[in-house]
């Protein structure tokens, strides 16, 4: 037993040294990809926010499948990095993606929080990324060259939402948020855009079951509209509890609420709610809609699927153009200018898509209906 301790220690040491000897050359392997090039998905596929990531991955999968069908001799693979939307888990996954020389581009990171945690890594590695869903305005202010957004940030959405609310003739708008980075950010922008029409009603805890305190405040303030910045599960609970408490104010919310989950959670209380998004309605491009339905057993593309499809097509276009290194692909994206299924895809210095629009949606008869562009 005595000796075996030494033996174990020594053999571990020898093995590790072998490892150092073998692995010494791995730093120079950045462009040494063996096998097919890959486009990576980065975001949550499991965990609480898994739904959103699954939508995105479906859009990405569709684009890659179409490419592979059209180019049998230049197959592209999809690699998924499931961060569960957790900024703690994200760095190790990002490093893995960076270390894999075959990964040429990232569709993601899906959320603003994880983006803040890992985008600096992608920047350092020169690995281009196009996020189909992270809309926090601050992300484009870091000077990241690799950063691109396939849709407009909340700084565009907020004023759009506000102008829709004003156009609807609302005079006293209660602004509520879920105290998340996304929700509070968006609610603050809406509040600023609304100016003196806004009444700040503070935050609620999305995980809590009972929102009666904030609803009581809304009732007390006598608002004729409520804007909620946050995600669909909390939005559904809020809309329902407001209706139960006899608040008749018109319900507005942003893209985090644009999901059938909102209708399920709010029930009849969802009727007439107006939601804004910088994402295009699913029927804005019939060709994409049909291709998506064919590939997914008739299922409609959900939020961000079309944006993910666009993001993936840009990478695929670069690869088709013969670009193989990450640097070349990045250059290609930065000078890209072509129509996608959602909008004209062309990015400014900061990585914001130019000419982006805000769309309004309404919940009608238990379904999401597009109301068109907000002027």
């Amino acid at each position, binding site marked *: 037993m*005595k000796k075996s301790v*030494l033996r174990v220690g020594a053999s571990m040491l020898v093995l590790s040294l*072998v490892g150092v000897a073998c692995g010494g050359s791995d730093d120079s392997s950045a462009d040494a990809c063996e096998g097919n090039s890959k486009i990576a998905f980065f975001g949550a596929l499991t965990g609480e926010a898994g739904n959103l990531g699954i939508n995105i991955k479906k859009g990405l999968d569709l684009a890659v499948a179409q490419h592979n069908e059209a180019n049998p001799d230049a197959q592209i693979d999809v690699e998924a990095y499931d961060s569960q939307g957790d900024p703690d888990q994200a760095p190790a996954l990002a490093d893995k993606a*960076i270390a894999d020389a075959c990964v040429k581009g990232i569709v993601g990171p899906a959320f603003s*929080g994880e983006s803040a945690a890992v985008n600096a890594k992608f920047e350092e590695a020169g690995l281009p990324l196009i996020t189909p869903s992270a809309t926090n305005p601050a992300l484009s202010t870091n000077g990241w060259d690799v950063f691109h957004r396939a849709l407009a940030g909340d700084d565009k959405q907020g004023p759009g939402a506000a102008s829709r609310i004003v156009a609807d003739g609302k005079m006293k708008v209660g602004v509520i948020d879920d105290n998340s980075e996304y929700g509070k950010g968006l609610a603050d922008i809406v509040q600023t855009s609304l100016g003196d029409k806004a009444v700040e009603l503070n935050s609620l805890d999305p995980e809590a079951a009972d929102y009666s305190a904030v609803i009581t405040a809304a009732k007390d303030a006598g608002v004729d509209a409520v804007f909620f910045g946050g995600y669909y599960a909390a939005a559904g609970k809020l809309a329902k509890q407001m209706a139960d408490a006899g608040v008749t104010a018109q319900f507005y919310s942003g893209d985090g609420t644009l999901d059938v989950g909102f209708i399920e959670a709010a029930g009849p209380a969802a009727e007439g709610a107006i939601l804004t998004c910088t994402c295009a309605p699913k029927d804005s491009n019939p060709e994409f809609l049909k291709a998506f339905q064919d590939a997914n057993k008739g299922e409609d593309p959900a939020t961000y699927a079309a944006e993910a499809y666009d993001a993936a097509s840009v990478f695929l276009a670069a690869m088709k153009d013969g670009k193989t290194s990450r640097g070349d692909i990045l250059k290609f994206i930065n000078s890209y200018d072509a129509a996608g299924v959602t909008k004209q895809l062309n990015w400014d210095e900061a990585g914001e898509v130019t000419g982006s629009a805000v769309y309004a949606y309404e919940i009608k008869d238990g379904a999401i209906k597009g109301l068109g562009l907000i002027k």
Partner: protein
Amino acid sequence: MSLVLNFWLRVTALFSGFGEQFRAMNKWQRYSAYGLGVVALYLLPYWPDVPVLGQIVNTPGSQFETVLNDQVVIFVLIALGLNVVVGIAGLLDLGYVGFYAVGAYVTAILTSAHGNLPWLLALPIAVVISMLFGLILGTPTLRLRGDYLAIVTLGFGEIIRLTAKNMDWLGASRGISNIKKPPSMFGLKFGVLDAKPYFYLGLTMVFIVIFILHRLEYSRVGRAWVAIREDEDAAELMGVNTFKFKLWAFTIGAGIGGLAGVHYAGKVGFINPDNFPLQLSILFLAAVVLGGSGNMYGAILGGILVAYMPERLRNFSDKRILVFGIVLVLMMVFRPEGILPKRVGNEHKKRRAKSQEGEVAS
């Protein structure tokens, strides 16, 4: 059937006998074993390149060295600190994540949000402030016993997180980015991509903490801690100032938690309140008890397991937390004192032998 049981008992025996036999080795054997172990640990990031071993240890979905630093080293540091509080002084702390958060936030504030200090200078300040928080929380609450302490510490952890989330000065839910990285030292460059230098730094921190704790455990303070854990009233009667020593344990534990926070903030460069959820406190406690509360090496093992296994088991994807929960129950049923249990009475064997000799002589 008894085969299974037999096997289990043997595995158990292997673990508990290991330490004794190790101590039975002579000095040079022991030190060379230590030396080999330490070198092998510093070479950990290269293990995945080793033919067979690499297959076993490598994490399938995430970068091994990043997991080593971001998850394993952080958890080991925290398990060491929490072990002082829970394992050594017997205080049930369910809000340990609070100190981790304080360490990370102080670093973020000093190097990015409201200051421009270098990371190396922020480190001692953050550790001291974490200890101060331990003192502030400890002074009023340590008079409470057992389970009341648990809920109060849990509340404290939540108060820290929610305060950070709600105050703009602390970055609110946006968090704080551009936290400074450790300076280049000993030829190591602390960049964005390579996690190895951080791992070496973290591992060194772990060794320093182990050394300090080892000295403490076998000092007067350590003996007082054990006395309090075994029987608080008896210790009080024997003239141990239990309050003072409990406060010490709490403060030192808080400091180590803060240190882990500093290391984390320096590595990731970005923190927000969602990095410090209540669930993390529970995971920390699970690590300590799973490994063997009261035994420093047990706590380390627990930290490694709790941090590493979910990454290793990424193929289970959705079910890994479920598996973790079941494993916790099974472990507690069959090995309730942890994988490496504390050696009751063994801790101060030598000293007791000495004092008994003294009694005989006098």
